[in-house]
């Protein structure tokens, strides 16, 4: 059912033996995906971080970790199945788009932001 993963970070031998319906044992069996989002400033990258990190993924098999490096927001997703990864990623992109649109329409940020 699950197409064989081809990503360079995935241990193929472990994936091949795992069942489709359950979590793969061991961290090496998880699919992961990194998204890098450039912002015009670190302040805006931090605002996007603040808007997007509070909500945990509804399914606990999916882990989403956010951080800011320089002016980039970096998001790392891990999930045991490609299908779960896609769902999490898809809704994250919608929320990311909302926060960027909000910045464009209701920014720029107040200068005295801590």
């Amino acid at each position, binding site marked *: 059912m699950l197409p064989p993963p081809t990503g360079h970070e995935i241990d193929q031998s472990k994936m091949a033996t795992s069942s489709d319906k359950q979590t793969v044992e061991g961290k090496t069996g998880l699919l992961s995906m990194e998204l890098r989002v450039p912002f015009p400033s670190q302040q805006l990258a931090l605002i996007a971080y603040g808007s997007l990190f509070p909500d*945990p993924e509804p399914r606990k098999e999916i882990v989403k970790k956010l951080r800011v490096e320089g002016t980039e927001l970096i998001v790392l997703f891990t999930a045991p199945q490609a299908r779960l990864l896609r769902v999490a990623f898809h809704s994250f992109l*919608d*929320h990311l788009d*909302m926060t960027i649109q909000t*910045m464009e329409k*209701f920014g720029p940020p107040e200068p005295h932001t801590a």
Partner: protein
Amino acid sequence: MDQEKQGAEGSKPITVIGFEGSANKLGIGIIRDGEVLSNPRHTYITPPGEGFLPRDTAKHHQAHILDVLQQALDIAKVSPQDIDCVAYTKGPGMGAPLVSTAVVARTVAQLWNKPLLGVNHCIGHIEMGRRVTGAVNPVVLYVSGGNTQVIAYQLKKYRIFGETIDIAVGNCLDRFARVLKISNDPSPGYNIEQMAKKGEKLIDLPYGVKGMDVSFSGILSYIEDAAQSLLDSKQATPEDLCFSLQETVFAMLVEITERAMAHCGSEEVLIVGGVGCNERLQEMMGIMAAERGAKVFATDERYCIDNGAMIAQAGWEMFRTGHVTALADSWCTQRFRTDEVEVTWRDD
């Protein structure tokens, strides 16, 4: 009149913007010391026979939220600098629509450098109802598409005296509307109410009061099964079915509300939530209240139906008594009971 704003903080008014998107209504309202400055709303209306699904509802909110926000600011004639606090619905409600709305609230709170405040949706209904009607310490019947609760205030909590043990009364009405393919515009409940006025025959339906609690799923199953044959055999018209369903479920709600009033010795009842703007429910509640020498308070569709001002109003009460929500604690939650919130703004 129930405001104590001229207290320790001096007379500087407090302005709060509220974001609501827990179900199919997207609303943003601005309140300044109890006065509604603006309260625009955009509703996701589905075709007849269809309910609203979380993902589509979230898409609706995403598509309209920035325009509604601009409207709220324009109508109120306030600039972001005039706002003291950004309130949003933390829950309960549908996950995806809640988060879509909260993301924008968090973004503007940070852009404008204002404190953020997560509000319980049910508390929003109660505080807006109290504000608009002037009810002081009422027994509250909160009836909507997602919630059915009888609530009374005691010792810093809004306590739930009775509630549905399965689906909400509004969900029962909405799903019945789908069976008859009644329009969802402006809302299925409104259209059932209009049809019910022309109903003449009361069909016997199951009656689901269990102590202080109510049950609607059995009634819904019964009427879903019976509807087609009753209509085909001309034993009932669609109007008769609407009338019978309303009479039955509203009688149940009035019964548990009366029991809560007797228990609390209360002489006020406040009806809030989307089903609360049904005039037949208000009328039936009025008959019961009159017999007890009590008074009914209700609001019209501007404030009964989910809206942003109610979140701003509850946020205003919370903010002036010291509540704020850190970003790390600002996650949304589908389950958030009314009695989890410490009511710091009431001293009675």
